[in-house]
């Protein structure tokens, strides 16, 4: 299953500069594990023992996965996952 994953500028050193990469898996955790097989080191920049890192936001089709099932959120073919650092608004 192909999931489109959008990578923020500060993590593109792990993806040879690619803005968009493809991953596969039935959950977000599986997709991130799959990315790690090709982009070594990216996994621990997004996830730690507790789940998503504090200053990392991950969106499934624009919805924050923390309000779904976190890294265990189910994904399916054609979904878009966006990774972004938390920034201030206001």
């Amino acid at each position: 299953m192909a999931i489109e994953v959008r990578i923020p500028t500060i993590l593109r050193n792990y993806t040879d500069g690619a803005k968009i990469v493809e991953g596969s898996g039935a959950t977000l955790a599986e997709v991130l594990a799959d990315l790690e097989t090709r982009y070594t080191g990216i996994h621990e920049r997004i996830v730690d023992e507790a789940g998503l890192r504090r200053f990392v936001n991950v969106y499934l089709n624009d919805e924050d996965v923390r309000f779904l099932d976190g890294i265990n959120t189910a994904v399916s073919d054609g979904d878009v996952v966006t990774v972004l650092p938390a920034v201030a608004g206001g």
Partner: protein
Amino acid sequence: MRFESLLDSVGHTPLIGLPRLSPSADVRLWAKMEDRNPTGSIKDRAALRMIEQAEADGLLRPGCTILEPTSGNTGISLAMAARLKGYRLVVVMPENTSVERRQLLHMYGASIHFSPAAGGSNEAVRVAKVMAEEHPDWVMLYQYGNPANSLAHYETTGPEILADLPTITHFVAGLGTTGTLMGTGRFLREHVPGIEIIAAEPRYGEVVYGLRNIDEGFIPELYDESVLTTRYSVAARDAVRRTRELLDLEGIFAGISTGGIVHAALGAAAKAHKEGRKADIAFIVCDGGWKYLSTGAYEGTLDDAEDALDGELWA
């Protein structure tokens, strides 16, 4: 309606039904018109509440200087209140903000200290914290962590909405300092079982996320995830499209961040409609479109508007 002064007239904004934008008679959208505040944005509520709290706490005395990191609206609200109350105001504002915001701040007599575009408001917060250390006599109200910000909405915005719409099922607002959502959300949760509290967060162009390290991110101290039920990230293109739709269908000329909120509200409306549930969805119109005319968001194609807003702090 009569008020003793401009400051007394903050809040008490109308809630307006949107029959053309609503999917059916059973799923209705309602706009809370915060552009009707004295300086034209919802930030008047938080700014005034923070100043009055600081006065009550003895932090602010006549002649004091207020310092605040802001991308615009909070600064404009503070500038108006500071002028009427006799304080000096220094705002730290990212340079990638619209020219109208600067003009308004200058008119009200505020001093602007620009922070670099890269990093957006994160940089403004960082710079303001350094300046606060250099000027210990200045008073930083700090909207991101000041409980008076969310209290303003707990005490006024929430009760006003509930009084006008007792059948409310969803509340949708923008996520910046998180003050509106935390305060209004907490109040509504206490009074309306099962209510959905939905955040619409602007997704900016890449320069705004230009941090040096992912651990340098920023989460406002006011933010409490448990108040929300859903959080959407809305791209500039969707925000502009919905801003125009709101004007075309309902005649409301709103700022771009409101378009992002409309996008999330319509998503919730479509879901309720599909599931055959009744819904009364109230959302915030943060400000009018006047301050963003120069950005190009209101003319030309969506592609043009999207290009024009890339790298701008449009919400």
